[in-house]
């Protein structure tokens, strides 16, 4: 069996485990869909009223029966109906996903465009003042929470310049690219900021390792220019840890970026999950978590495949 087939076969097993975990956890937390809807007014309900509501929310059956019904639906491509949206869960998720995907891609771009050159630059100036400057900046970037960065950007733009992108909605890129970028660029910078710092630190140390390798010395002694040595010989080999880091980060970002979405009022996956949990919209929570887990597995697989492409010495699936 090829590596790819074997990896793909583990998908359903992991998904099943995730589904059981999320199904049980969300029901174990005190409070239910009824208290989420009514708050303390739920105390005014008569037992008959409570039963009627439990039936409406589908939480009147034993948990095993509930799980079995839901699972049977999932096998038919039906993730259930969201009680908040009154629509099939999958439709709601797919509506939110383009924003999350775009935000993840854009913030990755920001991070790599800033982080890689900065890391390479710092590695070539090892232990000089400019290296120290980059490292201090990376340290600050990594330790500043992104909601602080977001709030500072919003405050600086609105109070200092009187401008701010339109918030509270999402314009798809192909509908109005300018408006879309206007809405997305600040969140992308906010999210990319901390990640750029990690990329800087990882690429700097990977470059330092590679630059001390024999083949780099050989290339230099054969008269290759410094620039060619760094960008053509050293960088590709220093990229593997960066790809690993980016893959994991990208997987996380596809799960939505709750804080940044809250601050910029972007209707993405992160807020969808958060609101679904707060409102105890069980079907939506389950659907979202499954969807996010699936994306994470796909991204991880792609990262593994990327290793082989980057380094011909790596042969996937041979000897473990």
């Amino acid at each position, binding site marked *: 069996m090829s590596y790819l087939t074997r990896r793909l076969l583990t998908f359903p097993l992991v998904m099943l485990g995730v589904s059981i975990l999320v199904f049980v956890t969300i029901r174990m*937390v*005190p*409070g*239910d869909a009824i*208290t*989420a*809807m*009514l*708050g*303390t*007014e*739920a*105390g*005014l309900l008569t037992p*008959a*009223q*409570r039963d*009627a509501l439990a039936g*409406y929310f589908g939480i009147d059956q034993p948990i095993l029966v509930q799980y079995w019904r839901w699972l049977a639906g999932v096998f038919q491509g039906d993730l259930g109906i969201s009680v*908040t*949206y009154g629509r099939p869960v999958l439709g709601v998720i797919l509506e939110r996903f383009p924003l999350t995907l775009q935000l993840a891609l854009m913030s990755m*771009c920001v991070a*790599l*465009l800033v982080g*890689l050159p900065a890391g390479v630059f710092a590695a070539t100036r090892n232990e000089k003042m400019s290296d120290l400057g980059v490292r201090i900046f990376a340290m600050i970037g990594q330790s500043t929470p992104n909601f602080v960065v977001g*709030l500072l950007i*919003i*405050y600086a*733009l*609105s*109070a200092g310049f*009187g*401008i*701010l*992108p*339109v*918030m*509270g*909605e999402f314009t798809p890129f192909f509908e109005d690219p*300018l*408006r879309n*970028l*206007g*809405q997305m*660029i600040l969140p992308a910078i906010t999210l990319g900021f901390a990640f750029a710092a990690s990329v800087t630190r990882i690429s700097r140390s990977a470059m330092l390792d590679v630059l001390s390798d024999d083949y780099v010395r050989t290339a230099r002694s054969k008269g290759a220019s410094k620039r060619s040595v760094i*960008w053509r010989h050293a*960088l*590709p080999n220093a*990229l593997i840890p960066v790809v690993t880091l980016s893959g994991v980060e990208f997987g996380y970002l596809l799960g939505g970026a709750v804080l940044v979405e*809250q*601050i*910029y*009022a972007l*209707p993405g996956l992160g*807020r969808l999950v958060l*609101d679904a949990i*707060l*409102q*105890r919209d069980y079907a939506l929570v389950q659907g979202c978590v499954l969807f996010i887990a699936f994306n994470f597995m796909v991204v991880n697989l792609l990262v593994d495949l990327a290793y082989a492409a*980057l380094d011909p010495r790596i042969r996937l699936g041979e000897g473990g």
Partner: protein
Amino acid sequence: MGRNFSAKQVSGLVSGLALAVALGAAVAAGPASAATLRMAWSQDATGLDPHKQTAFSSIRLLELIYEPLVRLDKDLQIVPAVASSWEFSADGTQLTFKLNPNAKFQDGKPVTPADVKASFERILDEKTAAAARANFGSIASIETPDQTTVTFKLSRPDVPLLTAMASINAAIVPAAEITAGSVGTKALGSGPFKLEKWDPNSKEVLTANKDWAGGKIGVDGIDISVLPDETAILASLRTKQIDFALLNDPLVATLVPKETNLILNRTPVLAYHVLQLNPARKPMDNLAVRQAISCAIDRQDVLDTASVGEGKVTGPLTMPGYTTDASTLFCYKRDVEKAKKLMADAGFADGFSATVIAANGEPATAAAEAQVIQSQLAEIGVKLDIKMMELNVYVDAWLKGDFDMAVALNGGRADPYSMYNRYWTKAGNLQKVANYIDDTLDSLMQKGREETDPAKRKAIFADFEKHLVEVSPWVWLYTSYSYTAQQKTVQGFVPTPEGSLFGLSSVSIQQ
């Protein structure tokens, strides 16, 4: 992918992004349609069924779309809505409404007595699971003698009934929608605005209902954006992206007056911040201990520290017309010596340990309130452990009465009986949360329900308040404000003590 990056490509991408920022900001700064009110709030509605939704965030939206028979104005006086007049029979067992003949649903059909009857029967039907049903227990039958009259026959005199009907939870919905089972999936009311589009937790689009019987509406519509972070709402107001906003956090609200183009509307509300003691648990079952806690708390200090002084110290009665001078109530002037003596008398000279629960961010001041109370009670030897909980987890514990003490923000009502019968009567639905009742409280509440003379009613509830504070099952702290912020170009908004946004039906935008 990184293999082929050249410096040139990198710089091209960077300048492209910079251009996008500049253009995006330029697009964003452009003007929007003038006659549509652009509005923002941080919490969205959670559903569209006016009989079932009890959360403030839902009611704020539904009040713009649906109408009850009557509503409360800014002074909490009852004024017409779907009904143009009403009358109690002399013995108080019959309540008759005349409907406004011009009242129409948003599909053009008139509002009839049959719709009123069907709406109330839906609320009373246990299968509907309307929490407000608890307020309408006295309705025995509903009659519709002609095309504009509805008569409610009551099983007992029920003076607070009319105020209970002035709630969006008693909205009139079309009988046909009830039969079709579409109430809650489709919003069809008789109110000033029609809901064109709702994307939950993101935005609402409302258009003015030209046929509204209540009068002319000053704007073409309202676009509501959900901006979960209130500092982002303030930033949007500052850059004129929105005209009007609802604010919850007093810390954000107090920043509004610093902006020259903005106005802050600040209205005292009926809801009250309270420290609930649980008299079902030791040692809070001991009157002296509860009184000691009440005497040891400096209510003004809690208000000043937790809520930057935004509010007013209150007793149990928060509605204008019933409030008394709070400083005359038991131990409303902090008295630590008296508190220590009470503790010693009760056999707790060395104090005791207890847990206080509070909900994260609900209200925004909950954690700060718990901390101030913790430090104040430490002075009489009470060691409080603060347990912060997610709102639903908190509500679950609260409803089960599973706490020693709870920091709470409880909703208020225009009528003292409707506000407190759930807690302080023997048959109260939330007696299992309050866990304290005595004959004095119960009999005063029953008298208050039946008394029709306003002056006598006021005296009854003043006695009720005085006794309630003395027996100290809870320690009432303060009432806060509801806040709306608006551009100076927005005119004519009238806030109410219920925090209603119904006043948006009369706003206009100046050019």
